[in-house]
């Protein structure tokens, strides 16, 4: 059965002596053999495991730093092995590239074989039909030609491709199985191409926007931005939007009390600077599509409005300050850097509790909504490293050259404030005022070119797969001969060539064909 191509192609034993050409051919046969494909698949599965155990740079970069802090000895080894980005590592890539080569080496010859098989006639009947796994025979007064004619009609009715010979009929069906199998394997390649395009030409970025403020799609406005390696900034669509309103619904009772849901962020947006302003209710699972770019709401939090006046009474810092939530109670962490404060720079670092509570003597938040908001911050002064010009994160206060502001008794001076409170700092450093609270949204923006290709690929793969798994290629032969009594002996045989086989169904079909040829009894479908 040469027309199943790769199926019968097994790794051949290595010959003892051969030249370079032969060696190359031998290697190629090894690489494109079914067994190699199987081993490579198992290897791929194995190689994917570490990425689910060791934190991954692309998925959880904070987790990576935490892990590295906890395992200083292992870190360099892991780094060498690429264990913090398994799916980009050379060894992972090697496996799937080998698999892809093997795949191409498998598809190309099989397509040729299939193409020839498609145009070939169903093969001639084997000499001895009774050797086939499914067979039947009967004797009749009908003439041989008559029986074969009826057999051909019956098999055609059953959607077989039929060839009538001198004393036999050959029939075959289920050609689409192999086609489905080829489509499936080719589609795997298509999906990878689509996927790669997204990675190469697309981008993904995030920005935190405070309610009432806006964003325009420009590289400089992103907080974090991950471009594909072939991405150019001219690919960015010139839209802009403003977060006009943000609403969230807090559950106050039931087993999930404290959970937030029904997030709605009302955006006013323009597709281009000259187009009209439209409005969109941005929700989880309902991204806004502008051209080929998509905008997602993926997070929210609080931005206490803080004003710092310095020792001279001048405003050194004022505005909504983004605090990042650390858990579901929205206890949040944030930093204020007043670089222009005189006589000394002022840095604040601490927590915001939307609903202040004391648990085990420690301050915490008991609920994510603003029931009793409290801001609690420690104060630093001196050189906060703010003049170095960029580079430092707005969420981290560099305290290495600063000193903490203390109370007279030597304990840290802490600002514990409710909305509207103003506190005078010791040593004439200035005043801090907690003016109010605003909200922010974390907006994710991404472009993924090639996604339609990938989607078409997976859908085709699924169709091909179903054809490959469920279409059952079969061959049926009917042969007649005349016995010594002058009667016609009819031999039938069938071969199920599918992988799953279904002997009962096959026998059932053969019995039905036999019955219908005999012209007795009912013809079952």
């Amino acid at each position, binding site marked *: 059965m040469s027309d199943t191509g790769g199926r019968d192609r097994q790794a051949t034993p290595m010959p003892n002596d051969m030249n370079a050409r032969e060696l190359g051919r031998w290697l190629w046969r090894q690489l494109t053999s079914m067994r190699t494909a199987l081993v490579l698949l198992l290897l791929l599965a194995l190689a994917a495991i570490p990425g689910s155990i060791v934190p991954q740079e692309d998925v959880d970069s*904070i987790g990576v730093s935490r892990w590295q802090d906890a395992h200083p000895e292992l870190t360099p080894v892991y780094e060498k092995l690429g264990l913090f980005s398994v799916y980009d590592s050379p060894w992972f890539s090697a496996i799937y590239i080998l698999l892809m080569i093997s795949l191409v080496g498998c598809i190309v010859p099989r397509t040729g074989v299939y193409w020839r098989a498609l145009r070939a006639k169903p093969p001639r009947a084997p000499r001895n039909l009774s050797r086939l796994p499914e067979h039947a025979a009967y004797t009749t007064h009908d003439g041989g030609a008559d029986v074969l004619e009826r057999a051909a009609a019956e098999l055609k009715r059953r959607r077989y491709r039929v060839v009538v010979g001198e004393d036999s009929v050959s029939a075959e069906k289920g050609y689409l199985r192999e086609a489905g199998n080829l489509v499936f394997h080719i589609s795997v390649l298509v999906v990878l191409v689509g996927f790669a395009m997204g990675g190469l030409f697309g981008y993904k970025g995030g920005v935190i926007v405070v309610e009432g403020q806006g964003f325009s799609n420009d590289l400089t406005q992103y907080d974090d931005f991950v471009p594909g390696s072939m991405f150019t900034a001219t690919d960015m669509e010139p839209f802009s939007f403003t977060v006009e309103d943000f609403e969230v619904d807090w559950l106050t009772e039931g087993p999930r009390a404290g959970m937030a849901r029904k997030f709605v962020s009302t955006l006013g947006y323009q597709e281009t600077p000259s187009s009209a302003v439209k409005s969109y209710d941005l929700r989880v699972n309902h991204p806004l599509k502008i051209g080929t770019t998509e905008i*997602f709401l993926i997070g929210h939090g609080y931005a206490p409005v803080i004003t710092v006046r310095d020792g001279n009474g001048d405003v050194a810092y004022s505005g909504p300050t983004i605090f990042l939530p650390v858990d579901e109670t929205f206890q949040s962490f944030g930093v204020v850097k007043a670089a222009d404060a005189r006589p000394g720079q002022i840095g604040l670092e601490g927590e915001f509790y939307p609903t202040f509570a004391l648990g085990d003597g420690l301050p915490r938040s008991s609920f994510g909504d603003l029931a009793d908001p409290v801001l609690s911050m420690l104060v630093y002064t001196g050189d906060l490293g703010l003049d170095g010009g960029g580079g430092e994160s707005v969420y981290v206060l560099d305290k290495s050259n600063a000193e903490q502001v203390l109370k007279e008794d030597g304990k840290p001076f802490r600002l514990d404030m409710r909305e509207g409170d103003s506190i005078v700092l010791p040593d004439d450093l200035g005043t801090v005022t907690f003016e109010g609270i605003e909200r922010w949204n974390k907006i994710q923006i991404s472009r993924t070119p090639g996604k339609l290709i990938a989607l078409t690929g997976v859908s085709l793969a699924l169709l091909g797969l179903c054809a490959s798994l469920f279409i059952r290629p079969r061959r049926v032969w009917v042969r007649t001969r005349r016995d010594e009594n002058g009667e016609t002996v009819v031999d039938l045989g069938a071969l199920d060539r599918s992988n799953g086989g279904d002997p009962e169904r096959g026998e059932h079909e053969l019995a039905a064909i036999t019955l219908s040829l005999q012209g007795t009894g009912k013809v079952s479908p």
Partner: protein
Amino acid sequence: MTDASWEVLSNQAVAASGVVYFLALLAHLVQWAGLRRLPAEQQVTSGRIAMAGRLGVLLTVVAVGVHLIALVGRGMASDPNRVPWGNMYEFTLSGTFFVGLLYLVFLRRFKLEWMGPLVVAFVLSMMMLAVLWLYEPVAPLTEALYSYWLVIHVVSAVIATAAFTLGGLCSVLYLLKERSRAERGYLARLPGLTSLDRISYRMHAFGFPVWTFAVLITGPIWAHEAWSSYWNWDPKEVWAFITWVVYAAYLHARATAGWKGRNAAIVALVGLATLWFNFIGINFFSSTSQHSYAAPAAIHSTTTEVS
């Protein structure tokens, strides 16, 4: 009916279906105890033993029906109403339901009567585990789960899981029967090795496209809607991918000389192990997974990702 009474109904239906599954198990045990005494070739189509077998199937049908009521009640008890697969307890409840249902659907087609006692025992013990250790009161879902993709994605994943589980059961029996020389008893009465291998293949062949649909089509589409990226190598995704690749290897194994039968059965069981590990393990061991149902997230964790 109020939400609270739906929840009560669901809990009662779980208990009731457990009892009926237990009775079905008893009926099958009576049947197989009787069959033990007879030579393996002897077919039994009438008499007390056959009656017990038929009763076992009938009771299983009833139990699966009541099981369905438990699921519906669970969904109706939530506000807003939803599909009953939002946490581990509900997953286990729906997963076992589909195991029972698929068994009944394929019962005639693949002649699965011999599977009855094992399927019923499996479903019953998983349900007991769920009630004892996984029970959670009805609760609303986190925001990202409110999507019709929840229905499509999860139902296909659960159906594929059930099919793979039944296929894995056949593979285990294949490996056991291969080593057994018994002339009577359960193993001796199972279908022959070729048939077991084939039934296992067909369960997997049914499960694989469904899993492909769940993991590689609806999963990415939904992940994109909710979290803005199609594929993130999140631990749950990694393991779903691993499962997919292992089952692809299984299908290859069956078409590779020297791998059919025994080796293929082993690959299938490796696949099943990755599948269950993903379902059970990842929820407990991974805190970074966005799929973790162990704790509710804000919208989700990327709010803390900003650096």
